[in-house]
């Protein structure tokens, strides 16, 4: 692997760092809202995993116009549009759940929650 290739791989690695941070938040934090935000970051970073390889050097946005010959790949864009929508839908539902949990328990810290209620019955 040559130096320039490593440099180009850097794109991916930056994404991966962001991805890991998001995933870490989901796994460690016990605040439910923060978890949802972490999940959002995790998902957003995955979008790049699709978009980055779709880019063609010297290409332009995939809107057909005279004067341009090379376009970037439109298919990942479509997929990720769908994924974003799914992500926000999940977020909205998660928030609604957290609101209800907060009303029912008075807290949204997971550790506080497990101390209460009849979990093992």
């Amino acid at each position, binding site marked *: 692997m040559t130096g320039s290739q490593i440099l180009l791989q850097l794109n991916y690695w930056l994404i991966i760092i962001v991805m890991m941070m998001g995933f870490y938040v989901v796994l460690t934090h016990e605040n439910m809202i923060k978890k949802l935000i972490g999940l959002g970051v995790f998902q957003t970073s995955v979008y790049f995993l699709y978009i980055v390889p779709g880019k063609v050097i010297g290409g332009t*946005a995939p*809107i057909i116009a005279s004067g341009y010959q090379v376009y970037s790949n439109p298919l990942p864009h479509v997929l990720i*549009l769908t994924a974003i*929508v799914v992500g926000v839908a999940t977020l909205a539902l998660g928030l*609604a759940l957290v609101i209800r949990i907060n*009303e029912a328990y008075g807290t949204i810290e997971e550790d506080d929650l497990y101390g209460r209620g009849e979990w093992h019955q």
Partner: protein
Amino acid sequence: MKQNPIIRIIVKLLVPFIVLFALYVQLHGDLGPGGGFQAGVIMAGVVVIYSLIFGSTAAEKLISFSIIRSLIPIGVLIYVGVGLFSLIKGNNYLDYSALHAEAAVGQHMGIFVVELAVFVTVFATMTAIFYAFVERQRQNEEDPE
């Protein structure tokens, strides 16, 4: 913030432009970036801003909760309906070529209708979710436990 007359006037002035922008994004989706989903979100943003500045009661006068709620399924219903229509016409499900004698024109029409369907559902859903959150808060305040 709600009392600040400058903000109120600015928002009042801005709202038509945002609506216009949403419509532009919606209708221009086949030429430039944008489409039903983005336009729906922007349009929902209008209601959100309006409700933040003038209060949710004023926003509900603008467009009522029950209308929003009944709009949610209608968008998907339009979408499914287009599919069923092409099925009845003898084509495959969601084959928009059935909409017009010339296949490509049919496709264009189909895309337009479908984008509209997406717009309706997205706008209605996002607004409804926001209303639901706000409504919940109001109920909690009236009925604290």
